[in-house]
């Protein structure tokens, strides 16, 4: 066997090995996705999106309140988390430098690493106990605590990527630093920041543990922010551990909707990242 033949065989072997590894990595993802589709697809109907859960045995129940509840929680968490995250990043990049900035960064990293159930417990102590009840607000705060460090770090990275020449161009025209930051620097970083925000939303959409003793969950529609609220992960959990088959089917359907939501967000982030001038 010639040297070049041996090399070709080695090359082919390595290529096959890499293809096999890729398949092994993708396989769980594909299996999960197809399994969820298989189990959940049959239960997806209009009722699922329109109605709240019905007692077991009755047909026509759905997870409408869970879906709306998740959206409400995400929206409220964003109202708290986005400004803090973005303004914090602006401070770190444009105005910072020095020990205080290091403290902020370190705190964000620590917060990022805290298990979400502990974040839920913190929100419990801070909101549920003084308010003497579970509430949407508590759930939103718990999610905001998870969301803020993600948004802050992503926005910081994106702002750092904006070339200094852009800031200088604006400042040299006599535009004050704060206006330069918001109208030039942040605008330039917006695409990347948006991607970070979408990823943070995808993360909190699927969080169950922090909602366990803050939002608590609700089998009905919520009318006040001081009341417990339903959320997709919570409902899926409750239905899945119940002893009823029809509720199990609803749990699968809920899982499918949740995964589809994540998938859509991933597509959106790819779309935003691709659109380069």
């Amino acid at each position: 066997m010639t040297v070049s033949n041996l090399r070709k065989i080695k090359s082919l072997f390595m290529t096959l090995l890499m293809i096999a590894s890729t398949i092994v990595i993708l396989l769980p993802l594909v299996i999960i996705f197809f399994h969820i589709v298989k189990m959940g697809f049959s239960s997806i109907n209009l009722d699922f999106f329109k109605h709240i859960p019905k007692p077991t045995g009755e047909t026509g129940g759905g997870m409408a309140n869970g879906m709306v509840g998740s959206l409400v929680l995400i929206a409220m968490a964003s109202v708290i988390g986005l400004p803090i995250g973005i303004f914090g990043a602006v401070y770190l990049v444009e105005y910072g430098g020095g020990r205080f900035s290091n403290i902020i960064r370190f705190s964000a990293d620590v917060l990022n690493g805290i298990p979400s159930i502990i974040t839920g417990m913190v929100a419990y102590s801070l909101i549920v106990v003084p308010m003497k009840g579970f509430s949407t607000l508590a759930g939103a705060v718990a999610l905001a605590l998870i969301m803020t460090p993600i948004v802050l770090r992503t926005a910081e990275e994106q702002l750092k990527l904006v070339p200094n020449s852009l800031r200088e161009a604006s400042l040299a025209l006599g535009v004050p630093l704060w206006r330069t930051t918001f109208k030039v620097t942040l605008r330039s970083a917006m695409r990347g920041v948006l991607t970070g925000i979408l990823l943070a939303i995808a993360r909190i959409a699927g969080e169950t543990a922090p909602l366990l003793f803050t939002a608590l969950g609700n089998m009905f529609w919520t009318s006040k922010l001081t009341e417990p609220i339903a959320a997709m992960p919570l409902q899926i959990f409750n239905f899945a551990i119940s002893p009823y088959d029809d509720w199990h089917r609803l749990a699968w359907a809920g899982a499918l909707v949740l995964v589809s939501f994540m998938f859509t967000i991933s597509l959106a982030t790819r779309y935003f990242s691709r659109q380069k001038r």
Partner: protein
Amino acid sequence: MGIKIKLQNLNVFFGDTRAIKDVSVDFHENMVTAIIGPSGCGKSTVLRSMNRMHDLIATARVTGSIIFDQEDIYDKNVDPVDIRRRIGMVFQKPNPFPAMSIYDNVIAGHKLLGSLKKQESDRIVEESLKRVALWEEVKDRLKTNSMDLSGGQQQRLCIARTIAVRPEVILMDEPCSALDPIATAKIEELINELKEQYTVVIVTHNMQQAARVSDYTAFMYLGELIEFDRTGKIFTNPDKKHTEDYITGRFG
């Protein structure tokens, strides 16, 4: 002709490093003054201290004074934003705002601070682009992206953007070093016209350009001002030997 800007014992420190050492020089009104010298001599640092760009660097410290219109621009009562409006700057690498059209770029100095009536902004855009001899080339595509222009056109766009806010002084930090010779020639021609209305200070590492374009020349070396005089004298009969050595290429 009066003195528009006067540097008096200017020192610039970055941390403990003294980058600019006791520089005193007068910039004459409606004249072009070139600052030349080998790399690292502090030309850009001096230029940037004139529109207080060093304010943005945490470790930078400026002592001495820069008198502009009878006022020290580093005085506590002076607003740096106001200074930068009156003393504009054009950078080495053309830096039009990438997400904005040609039109929006020119008017950016106004638009970023508030809104303008369309008629007024149209007028300013046309006037500024005509001044930099760019109007004929782009008047039919004002709304297209500024990044579609060539390097030379982008630099002229940046100059148009700078003069649109009506400064009194234009600082230019090696404006042609990223451009080809033809674009460079156009910019040099423009500089010659600009001095009728503005006071121009241009930093350049290209001695021939300094000789072509400027009325006065300052030669700097390692943070110090070695010699300052009329361009003709500097390049034909300088006082200091060091200057002569640089001019004749003995070092650089």
